[in-house]
């Protein structure tokens, strides 16, 4: 038994040592500037060997802790490298003259100052807010009506639910091109030979239409779940008391699904705010605005997410784009917090 344990200890120590040596060697090669292709695999094998050594180490007392560390490591590591580090770097970069690769100096708030002097950006913020508000109202209203329809006991409810949900399966890029075809080639006869996409205002309406088409089916499903969870006996009691369909709807169904309304509003809010794919594929932000605060703009349908993307990628102003993105993050955080606050209050009152 004892000998067995000693052997195990030796094996674990060998793994730990091999892992550590590989790690140090590969990191050393990195810092020494060696271009050897082996250093990547060496690093990975080193990490695995090190964890294998830890795992094999024969300790009753700490084994559980070691397992916890090994279990947490993969997700925390990927999460840290893809979310936390870029977030912190990004906030830092927004105060510099970052070019996407390097920066030479800190410039304080000048990126933030210059973006507020840019009428095109302010215009993007405004239309994004209009878009979000319109969609919160329209998507929720339409989705709720669809949910009522799909729970009214008509035949083929399952088919209706599935077909209304179907657009949600398709990615925004493909959707955008399909609808571009619809607006430019199919509906053009109905709109008098002029495509809806050719004018800024009607193009924004077109994006709203496509967004509702894509998203209302999904929100409808959530409302359907909410509505089917309203207890049957409560509805029966209301019927016995002589409540008509509308009274039942407004006095019983809607108050009872208040939490569902919160969820749906929140989902629509964040998703509409981040709208990018459809915007890019449908109009790519184009559209003329003759006079906005005394300026001519050519980004009549460019919402915030697309504006950030174009600032950085198309115009190559990474620092400015990053500053806009930080503002985007702050707005989204504030709006979501307010939204959750308001909804929580309402639920308590009801």
């Amino acid at each position: 038994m004892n000998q067995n344990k000693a052997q195990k200890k030796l094996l674990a120590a060998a793994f730990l040592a091999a892992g550590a040596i590989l790690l140090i060697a590969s990191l050393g090669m990195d810092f020494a500037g060696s271009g050897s292709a082996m250093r990547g695999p060496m690093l990975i094998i080193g990490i695995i060997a090190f964890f294998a050594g830890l795992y094999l180490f024969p300790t009753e007392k700490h084994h559980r802790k070691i397992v916890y560390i090994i279990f947490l490591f993969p997700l925390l590591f990927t999460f840290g490298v893809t979310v936390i580090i870029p977030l912190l770097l990004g906030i830092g970069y927004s105060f510099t003259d970052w070019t996407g690769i390097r920066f030479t100096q800190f410039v304080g708030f000048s990126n933030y100052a210059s973006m507020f002097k840019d009428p095109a950006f302010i215009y993007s913020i405004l239309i994004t807010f209009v878009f979000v508000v319109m969609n919160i109202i329209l998507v929720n209203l339409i989705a709720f009506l669809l949910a009522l329809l799909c729970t009214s006991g008509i035949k083929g409810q399952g088919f209706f639910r599935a077909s209304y949900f179907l657009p949600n399966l398709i990615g925004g890029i493909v959707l955008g091109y399909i609808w571009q075809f619809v607006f430019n080639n199919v509906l053009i006869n109905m709109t008098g030979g002029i495509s809806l996409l050719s004018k800024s205002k009607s193009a924004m309406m077109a994006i709203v239409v496509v967004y509702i088409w894509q998203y209302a089916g999904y929100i409808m499903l959530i409302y359907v779940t909410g509505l089917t969870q309203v207890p049957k006996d409560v509805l029966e009691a209301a019927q016995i008391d002589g409540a008509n369909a509308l009274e039942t709807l407004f006095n019983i169904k809607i108050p009872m699904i208040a939490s569902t309304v919160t969820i749906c509003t929140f989902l629509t809010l964040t998703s509409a705010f981040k709208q990018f794919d459809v915007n890019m594929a449908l109009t790519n932000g184009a559209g003329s605005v003759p006079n906005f605060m005394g300026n001519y703009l050519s980004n009549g349908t460019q919402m915030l997410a697309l504006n950030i993307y174009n600032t950085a990628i198309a115009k190559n102003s990474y620092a400015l784009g990053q500053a806009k993105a930080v503002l985007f993050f702050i707005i989204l955080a504030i709006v979501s917090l307010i939204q959750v606050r308001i909804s929580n209050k309402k639920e308590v009152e009801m």
Partner: protein
Amino acid sequence: MKSARNTKTIILTIVGVLIAVYVLFPFYLVVMNSFKNQASIVASPVSLAGASLSQLMSNLDKVINNSNFQFWYAFGTSAIVTIISLVLLALFGGMAAWVISRNNKKMWATVIYMIFIASMIIPFQVVMLPLISTFRDVGKFVGISMLQSVPGIVFAYCGFGGAMTVFILTGFIKGIPYELEEAAAIDGCSPEGTFFRIIFPLLTPVITTVTILNGMWIWNDYLLPSLMLGQNGKVKTLPVAVQAFVGSYVKQWDLILTAALLAIIPMIIIFIVAQKQIMSGMVEGAIK
């Protein structure tokens, strides 16, 4: 009374059918126009005039073998990226969620959990630019390309999908009685054995939910792969390939719509097969 009810049902059914026609109409246009050539699409985009099977074959041939689109290659890349990311997210997410929920009284676990929750509000836009430069630097540092590579993109999806996965899985694991694990421990089962033999199999329903949510997002995602892989890079996922293809064939609707058809079909097939699971998974993911 009964006839009034009948009329109401009939009216509602008609309304339902009309909405379904409206919702499905763009799909009809895509399918039907894939059977036509450019001239007859422009002349009559709605009618069946000019549609033929041989035209569909010719369109498919042109699209699939197009050097900008490379359908099979893009499809394969998308499938590999999605499947590996989903497997890793389920595995790593389950492992992390189990550790977090079994230590939920400890400070460090609570902090990790709160960071995950808070991070769900972070929009992709605020991390996307530094993400590219970080991945470029990490890739150079370890000598493995993180951009323009499938492993790099899988890594990114594990990072971005981690928070939601852990959030949903932790909620579920908290509901699994701890006695189950104690019994296993008394029987001499190691902690890792307890997780893989007892807890992980119990997670099947919630892992289905998580996999559907993550799968829909990863398969359809455009922005992350387009930034990481580049518009005209060697490695392409399906959405990136569609964008590159359409960009090079402006207004060539016969080819664009056929490409759209090819991009849609896999999702539709999966939806038809697993309709119930997908619809309930999407709802459960949202409610939690």
